[in-house]
């Protein structure tokens, strides 16, 4: 496959290093622009200061499969195969970790995965109670009792179809 020239090293917040193909890393806009900025330099290490290793690993796994599937299914069927993989990919991620992952993906500016993770979070919280959603995101309720009652009144269409979770 590709020679070592086509590899780049991504360094997580803990200092752990991941060697990745350029084809994979170029999906991360931030890595791409950093590499373009220091073109010609032999040092191909990109520090992702705020991203934990576990998230770096997840993101690399996603884009590695993304690139492979795209190569394999050039004539068509790529989208279906990718959907299949995405489902499998999301199953192995803890619901709590989705938040960290979306932050990491947002920071690395990787649009395809960003949509996938946002959809996964949306799916997870959509039928949960308000209390659950607050707890999940660590949000403090900043409404007064009157304000809350007013919003409830304004939106009678917000019926209760909530799961206990």
């Amino acid at each position, binding site marked *: 496959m590709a020679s070592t020239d086509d590899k780049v*090293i991504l360094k*997580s*917040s*803990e*200092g*752990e*290093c*991941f*060697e*990745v193909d350029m084809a994979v890393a170029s999906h991360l806009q931030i890595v791409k622009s950093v590499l373009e900025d220091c073109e010609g330099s032999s040092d191909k*290490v990109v520090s992702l*200061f*705020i*991203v*934990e*290793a*576990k*998230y770096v*690993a*997840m993101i*690399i*796994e996603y884009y590695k499969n993304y690139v492979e599937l795209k190569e394999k299914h050039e004539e068509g069927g790529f989208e279906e195969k990718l959907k299949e993989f995405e489902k499998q990919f999301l199953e192995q991620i803890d619901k*709590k*970790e989705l*938040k*960290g992952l*979306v*932050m990491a993906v*947002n920071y690395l500016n990787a649009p395809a995965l*960003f*949509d996938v993770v*946002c*959809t996964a*979070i*949306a*799916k997870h*919280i*959509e*039928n949960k*109670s*308000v209390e659950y*959603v*607050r707890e999940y*995101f*660590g*949000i*403090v*309720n*900043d*409404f007064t009792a009157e304000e*809350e009652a007013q*919003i*409830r009144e304004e*939106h009678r*269409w*917000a*019926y*209760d*179809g*909530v799961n206990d979770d």
Partner: protein
Amino acid sequence: MVKRTYGKTEIASSSENTKRMNSDEMPYLPEAVIFNILIMIPAHFLGSMRLVCKLWADLIKQPFFALLHHQHARPGLFVQNKQFPYSARFLEPSRDGEFGVTYLAPRYPGLMFSSVKGLSLLSDPCNKLIYAINPFTMQGVKVHQPVICPSRDHSSCGLVYKNGVYTLVWGFQDAELAAHFCVLRLGIDDDWRKIETTIPYYGIYMQTHPISIGGGFLCWAMARHRETVIMDTNDESFHILRIPRGRTTPLAFLKKGEYLCTVTENLAVYLIHILKDVRRRKWIRYHRFDFARTREFMFTAYLKFIGWTSDEQELTMLACKANDTLTCLAYNIKTRKIRCVDGYMNSGENVQVHANTLISSSYG
């Protein structure tokens, strides 16, 4: 420096404690991320999301949010009883494509006959009213039918969305059967404005409501004439287009994405044509659907087509069986498989393709 190639085992081994981005310590996600999560949530769950905190309530309230949210909304089927339209059930596809049912009971003032970009037209013929409302938030306006229109018979109404404005178009036939048209821009005009152009006697078929397609066009189906009258709402001109020849006249005129589509039949083989370009009058043969090869064929007396759902990939239809029961089926053009959406429809029900959104007529 430790060089490591990526491997699955490392996910487990990398849980060191020197984390700068620990999910437990992270109080808030950036606003942009929250926004992108919220636009993925179906409209009927957004009500409770507004109660989470002020920031979320503010995000959801923005018209810009409603517009973006609409792009992710998945069209479902809005079902009302023709005799008792006050309540409705909404068959909404989930992400996996399975339809779930929501019961809605806000006392609808009439039957839904059209739904364009989240806004629906409900007809109340007794009071000569048309309601242009969002059937989910119940926000919207009521409009009297044009005074010059003699009766509700031989008249029809359509809705067009373009550049942030919803326009109502009313078409009717006079005693000489010439067709006249009036327009009213929601939130801008106070009353109907009659268009000078008329279509002289043509035997035009004004009983079916027009279909709104992309680019600001409205299409009146005239199945008997194998033609369609298309109004270009940009310059208020009218064009008469021949529709592709099948052995029979089209069974249905439907909106597929931004295009008009027709369904014709010959011996249980259905042909789907799409009007690719209105100005060049270009139709393409889009799909051939051999119903006789499906399991459902044996029990079905006839099909009535409703519209396209599930990313425009499924053609939903009502199958009337020999014993007079109705089943709602969905045919997937990619997998060529047919599935049952609802086994208990009845002939007194009115079905419309509709997407639940937060859009209101005043948003521009």
